[in-house]
């Protein structure tokens, strides 16, 4: 390691040690409890909070799903475009390609451009990663499989969501590049414009369930899924989701052919890797909340356990989200903003009005 990178490494390593020590200190009771459960009744470990935070809806799950999603995306898009996609790494069909990519990124140099605002430039990807993964804390995969069964989960989800434009602007401004800055501004306009449709199209789910708790919203769909009661809202939510994630029909902020790669232009190595990771984790969070709002969460015929239903639905939604990359061209920024304000918001309002008009008939349908 040369003298130039040593201070960065030292600062980051010391911070991570401090954070780890704090986490361990907070968790000392839970770790002892989990060990005790593991020794007496290994199957009961799934009921402990530590398991949820570390393994299933938590850390391990949200680390594995992005890797799988990346492989599925590359393979799927390749098949649509009559290519073979990843083929060689890790057994059949290049299954371990994303893992290989991750290790490759670990060994790559993080280049800090000239005159960049170094602390912000280096910390923005970490914030993006934390912000992208944090919404998954409120998403239930079964009545008990949720890290924090928060009474205002919907509001917490949208509150965390609102931080993204800030992080994008920080990254764009600190990397001292014109492409980054233009991309960052586009991302700001896009995410600000599509936050309103996403709020207004989430409103029918809250209205029908009468609760901000995501578990209650999923439980209220035991008779009819909300996608049948509020189909327009579901469509608006889906489109806004794509725009918030900067997926392909709405990927002007990182348009490869015009803006190099938008606000991530100057990022390389693991810094870029964290950004990619945050995008896919955000996709998981959005797919989870779409399933809870409109596709009934864990409810379904009792042929499968509740968690399996959730996972099947989330996988289907993620696959549909990924497939847009293969099928759609990019649209212009002014078309995007015009569509968001002129079409999606009136449509979301229309669905709310319909629900108000048919309010009398609804209580019998909502479980």
């Amino acid at each position: 390691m040369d003298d130039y990178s040593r201070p960065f490494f030292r600062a980051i390593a010391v911070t991570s040690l401090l954070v780890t020590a704090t986490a361990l200190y907070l968790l000392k009771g839970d770790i002892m409890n989990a060990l005790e459960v593991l020794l007496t009744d290994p199957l009961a470990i799934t009921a402990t909070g530590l398991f949820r935070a570390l393994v299933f809806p938590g850390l391990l799950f949200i680390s594995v799903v992005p890797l799988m999603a990346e492989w599925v995306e590359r393979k799927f898009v390749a098949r649509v475009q009559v290519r073979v996609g990843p083929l060689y790494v890790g057994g059949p069909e290049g299954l371990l390609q994303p893992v290989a990519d991750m290790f490759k990124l670990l060994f790559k140099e993080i280049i800090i451009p000239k005159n960049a605002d170094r602390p912000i430039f280096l910390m923005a990807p970490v914030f993006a990663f934390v912000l992208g993964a944090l919404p998954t804390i409120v998403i239930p995969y079964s009545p008990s499989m949720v890290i924090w069964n928060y009474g205002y989960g919907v509001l917490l989800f949208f509150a965390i969501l609102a931080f993204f434009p800030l992080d994008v602007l920080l990254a764009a401004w600190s990397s001292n590049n014109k492409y980054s800055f233009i991309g960052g501004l586009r991302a700001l306009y896009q995410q600000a414009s599509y936050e309103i449709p996403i709020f207004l199209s989430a409103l029918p789910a809250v209205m029908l369930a009468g609760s901000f708790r995501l578990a209650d919203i999923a439980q209220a769909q035991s008779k009819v899924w909300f996608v049948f009661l509020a189909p327009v809202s579901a469509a608006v939510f889906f489109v806004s989701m794509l725009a918030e994630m900067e997926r392909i029909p709405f990927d002007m902020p990182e348009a490869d052919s015009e803006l190099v790669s938008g606000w991530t232009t100057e990022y390389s190595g693991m810094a870029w890797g964290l950004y990619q990771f945050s995008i896919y984790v955000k996709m998981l969070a959005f797919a989870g909340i779409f399933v809870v709002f409109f596709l009934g969460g864990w409810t379904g015929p009792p042929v499968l356990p509740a968690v399996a239903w959730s996972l099947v639905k989330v996988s289907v939604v993620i696959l549909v989200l990924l497939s847009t990359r293969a099928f759609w061209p990019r649209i212009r920024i002014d078309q995007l903003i015009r569509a968001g304000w002129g079409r999606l918001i009136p449509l979301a309002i229309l669905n709310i009005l319909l629900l108000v008009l048919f309010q009398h008939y609804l209580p019998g349908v909502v479980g």
Partner: protein
Amino acid sequence: MAVLGDGSFWFLVYLLLLLTTGLVLYSVSFALAPRVRSPLKEETFESGQIPPGGKRVRLVMQYFIFLLLFMIFDVVSMLLFAWGYAFFDYGPAGSAYPVLLLFFLVPPIYLTLKVARQVGV
């Protein structure tokens, strides 16, 4: 505290775990990856050209009117959430004012889109 449930503690823990993951990945990368400085490498990317002029350009205010509109709509939509929470409790008469509010939302959008078209956005 009833509304927080027993999991409010896990919010802090989860936040710290995520921070740890990100920072550990970063520090491993810093420890393993080679770092060789060179003036050409650290030049900001501009498709192979030498970047001219200052890089921190002024804000492009083309779409600023939409950001202003966003500030209004953000508040209004959050207020609508407060109504939607008790949608069935109020009944049709109680929904009259929020519905009126929704109708008031349409003219600003129309005007903004019109102005934007005149400005050429």
